[in-house]
Every structure is written in C-alpha cells, then in structure tokens.
C-alpha cells in the first residue's frame, strides 16, 4: 500500500529522532560521498542527503 503524507511525516520524525542520538556523531565519521550530490552513504546505508541534513539539505 502506498504511504500517505502522514506516514511519511511519521517516518521522518522517527528518522530525525534517531539522528539526534549520540551515535550520529560516530556516523558522521563514516559518511562516504557518492557520485551524486543528493545521495550519501552512511555506514553502508544509501541515504538522501536530506535524510541526514534535514532542512539544511
């Protein structure tokens, strides 16, 4: 089933909460740039830059 806007918001909220954890400082050290400016690789995760930088992206 396709996610609605509320679901996406919830997911983004969870993501934001997780990224606020102390572990995120560790993650920053293993960010790998990719060929695309909008994508980053963090500890093996392929993420949108906006996933990790929020509204600053």
């Amino acid at each position: 089933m396709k996610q609605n806007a509320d679901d996406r918001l919830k997911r983004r909220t969870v993501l934001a909460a997780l990224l606020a954890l102390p572990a995120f400082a560790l993650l920053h050290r293993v960010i790998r740039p990719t060929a695309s400016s909008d994508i980053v690789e963090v500890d093996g995760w392929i993420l949108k830059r906006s996933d990790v930088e929020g509204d600053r992206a």
Partner: protein
Amino acid sequence: MIFQDAAAFQASSFTPRVCVIGSGPAGLSVALKLAAAKVPCVVLEAGADEWTEDAQDAYRGDVIGDHYFDLDVTRLRYFGGSSNHWAGWCRVLDAHDFEPKAYVEHTGWPIGRGDIEPFLDETRDVLDLAPFQADRAISSEFRWFEMQKSHPVRFREKYAPLLAESRMIALVLNTQVDELVGDGAAVTAARIRSRGAEAGELVAPYFVVATGGLENSRLLLWSNERSNGGVVPHARALGRYWMEHPMFEVGMGFVTDTDTMRFDAEGDAFFTPSAEAMAAREVLNFHVQVESMPYHGIKKYIAGTACMAPESTQWVAETLGLRLTCASRLHMAWEQPPREHNRVSLSTTERDAAGIPRIELHWRKDDLDRRTMLEGIRMFGETFARNDLGRIRISDWVRDGGDWPDDMEIAGNHHMGGTRMGENRATSVVDANCKVHGMANLYVAGSSVFATSGQCTPTTSLTALALRLGDHLGRVVVAGPSKA
C-alpha cells in the same frame, strides 16, 4: 520409441539422421523440432529413467579456485537431465545482453535477441510458461522485471508419453557416448557404452552434443584428445570462458512504496539495470532480488530506520523492548565476465568407471565480479532512495572487500560457456548456428554455447536456442549436406 539400452535399439530397424546426445531440456528441444520436420533422430541418455548412484557417479569432479557446489550435486544424469531438479524460474536474455560491451573483453554474440524471438512462443509451450509481463522502469537506471516462477517442467514426466509414441524420435536409455570419432572435417561415429559395457559405434549423418554446461566441454575435450584434434579442430577456446551467476545476500533495507515494488506472490521483487547505467559504472549485468519481510506500524519504521547504525538499533531495541529485524533482504546475482582461465579441463589423475577423465573445474571470481556487486548495489540503493522506495544498507563484507561468504547461495547452478558461440575461432567453439567451427556435421546445444551470461536464469534462453538449432538442423538435413 523408448529403448532401455543400446542392444534393444540396435535390434530395431530405426535409422537416425541425427544423433542427439543428452535428454535434458536442450537435447529434447532439438529432437522435438527435428521430429516436427520429419527428421528421424536418436536421443542417447547415459542414465536410466530414474536417478541411480552408478550413473550419477560419472559427474564427480574437482573444483579448483573459489568455493563451488560438488559437481555431482549441481546437475543430474538421467532421463530429463537437470530439469529434474530445476527450480522453474524463467526470464529471457535481454537484447543488450547480446551486444558487445566496450569495457569488457570477449563480450558480444554473433546473433541478437531477434534471432531467438521467433522461437519464444514455442519455448513457452515447452516450458509451460505464461506470457511474460512487460518490464517497467522505476527510474532512468532500473527496471522492474518479472522473474516468472513457473511450475518447473520435468522433461521426463512431460515428454515420456510423447516419446513412447513417437515414430521420429528414438530415446535410448542407459547409453552414453564415451567419445566421438572425428577426422577433422566431420564426426564419423560415436563410440557408445550401454549398461556399463562397450556397445560398439553408432553412425549418423549429424551429431548434436547436448549433455549440459559442464559435460559438453568434457565430452568434446576427451573426444578431441582421442581423435588428435579430429573433433574440434579449432580447440583453443574449448572448455574455456566458463561462467556462472554468482549469488549472494548483499544487504538489507526497508520498503516504503510497495506499489512500485510489485512484489510477487512469494514476496519477491526483481530489478535490473539499463545498458546505459551499466556502461556508466563499467559493470556487467545483474539483478537485485528484494525479498520482503513485511511489518506493520511503528515496529516496521523503527526496524528500518534504527538499522541505520548498530548503536541506534540497540538503543531502540533496549528502550522499546522490541525484537528488531529488517524489512527486506537484498540478494544479488550477476553476470560474470567471460574469462579464458575459468575453464573445464580433464583430470590427469581421476577417471570414471568408463575410464574417461573426470572434470577439473577452474573457477575464480575476480575484480570485475566485485565491482559489479558493489557498484551495482550502490546504484540500486541510490535509485531506491532518490525515488523514495525505501532505504537500503549494504553489508559490511560487500563494502570492505571481505572474503566471499560460503554460507550463502554462492551461485545459481547455472553452467554456461565452454563451447561458446562466436565468429573468432580463437575465442569461440561454435558458430552462429551452434555448429562446431571447421566441422560439417557436429553441433552443440545448451547453455555451454552462451558467449556471455546476462543476469537471468539460463533455461529459457537455452531452450529457445535449442529450438532454433533444431529448426536450422531440420532444414539442413532435409536440404542435404551441401547446405550445412
């Protein structure tokens, strides 16, 4: 007609125009087309009508290089061949699989997808397939495709009644070809063995070797050695450029857009890159199988998002007391580069009960395998994120270049190459019609003729190629030798 051994066949008055060696999907597909053209043919099957330890023993051999399956487990030697343990997953090679890739040596076929397309309807009939659904692009780089999970046809069960009634096909069980005899221009006879004893020579105007993607090389290597080069006069590539589809679990992830994913009834979705995407990263073809493990509600979100780092996963698990796993597993299978050093050779020390050297399979994955795996899954992850299908994580061993795991699928039991198709006699064994270079009456059927492997399971394409060969050979036989 079905005969239980060579003696029974020799007592009949059946006179074949073609001798087909092997009763698996390739051999029987050739025979069906010959019968349709009213060309009488004999099909020799080394095994019985059921599995026996004695027949299977001839398939034992050694693997030198990367971890691989036991050679007497990865294939079957009885009526119907390896269709007896085939999983039934189907897909046809794409048009771009036949094209050369400038960045990988020895790629490209002398035929195109258009050459097998006229035989795809018959292929579906032979393999009891439904029409394939059209691919659907999910981005400029990737397409969803249907891996058709058919009810696997066991050729023995499906075709035994037809063969029993046929006046054009004589199936002879318990009868193997020890060697083909050739004079450098044509095969003159096949030396056969039935029920463990030598049974003389079988003469036919044409021969088709269809004993499987490992055994085709073995039979031709041994025959050529015994005939001092009289069976495969241009043998430099014989046994070489052997390929598999390496298969590994390469990561995990979570899915947020299941509509686009179009999971099948078993919860799998398959994706393959465009030719342009492969070229941009200089990788070979591959597919990613997303195996869903559905969740509901917050547990799903947390399972997916918390996996972003082990530390945060543990924190969430401890805090919420949830037992976390991830929402999908990512499996990858890819096309290997055709390498001369990956090859089937004859053992110098080990022989089977008939005195024929056993196989030594030399097989190693190399840097391009690693590159295709890692850059391929990265590319898929980028499409996944950019299009908000979800997020994926690549396993540590994949990113770190760790040892190849030996506790995963390893490969597909897909035996390809060894008698590859091509125009260059130094790098191929058969021509575009599957005829051995320099020989007037010797053909090869099966995935051993694959010049490259593409990413998909080989049975559908090899069946189409075998039907094409049967169609061609039927016309050659009817027209006479000058048309060969």
